[in-house]
C-alpha cells in the first residue's frame, strides 16, 4: 500500500517541528553548513607561543622604586658595542628625519 507523498511530507514536517530541525523537503541549499562550522581562528592564531615578560619588562616595573635588575646578556651586548665604537667599527648613525627621496616609487 503506497503512502501519498503529501502525507509523507506532513509527517516530515511534524517530525521537524517536534525535534526542532529545519523542514526542507526540496533540499534547497541554504548555506547553513557554513553557520554550523566552528571558527578555526583562535586555534590557528595560538600556533606560535607569545612573548612573556623578560628582564627589560622587569626593569621597567621596578624603575620607580629605584632598583636595578642585573641583566648580564644586555650588559655584555652593550659592552661589546662600546668596544666596537672605540675601535670605530660600530654601526653608522641613523639618518635624522624622513628622507626626501622615497625608495618605493
Amino acid at each position, binding site marked *: 500500500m503506497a503512502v501519498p507523498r503529501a502525507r509523507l511530507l506532513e509527517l516530515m514536517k511534524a517530525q521537524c517541528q517536534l525535534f526542532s530541525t529545519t523542514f526542507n523537503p526540496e533540499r534547497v*541549499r541554504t548555506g547553513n553548513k557554513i*553557520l554550523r562550522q566552528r571558527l578555526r581562528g583562535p586555534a*590557528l*592564531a595560538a600556533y*606560535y*607561543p607569545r*612573548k612573556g615578560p623578560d628582564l627589560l619588562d622587569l626593569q621597567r616595573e621596578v624603575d620607580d622604586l629605584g632598583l636595578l635588575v642585573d641583566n648580564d646578556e644586555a650588559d655584555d651586548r652593550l659592552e661589546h658595542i662600546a668596544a666596537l665604537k672605540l675601535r670605530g667599527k660600530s654601526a653608522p648613525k641613523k639618518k635624522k628625519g624622513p628622507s626626501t627621496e622615497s625608495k618605493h616609487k
Partner: protein
Amino acid sequence: MSMFRSKKFDLGCFANVKTIRDHSKRKAFEAFEPERQALRYVIRNTTLPARTRAIAQLQLAGTHCYTRSTQIRNRCLMGGKGRGILRDFKLSRFNFRLQALAGNIPGVKKASW
C-alpha cells in the same frame, strides 16, 4: 603586510621575517574569520537574491589575502623553516631529531629493535 603586523613584537619563539609574517597572517585570519564566514554564508544561500550573492562574492574576493586561511603555513618554532614540519611538535624534521635525541621531547625515543 605592515598594517597587520602587531605594533609590539609578540613572538616568544624563534623569529625571522617569515615567522613574523605568518604570525600576522594568523592573527589577521582570526580577526576577519566571522566576516568571511558571513560572506560565505550569503554566497552559498540559494534562497537569497542573485544580486546579493554576487555582491558578496565580489566582497569576499576583494578581501585582503592575509585574511585567507590558505596563506597560513605551519613553520618550525625553533628555526622558522616552512617545510618538513611535524605538526604534533611544530618542529622541522631536523630540529625534531635534535630535540628528541637530546631527550627534550617527552615520550619520544629512537626506535631500535
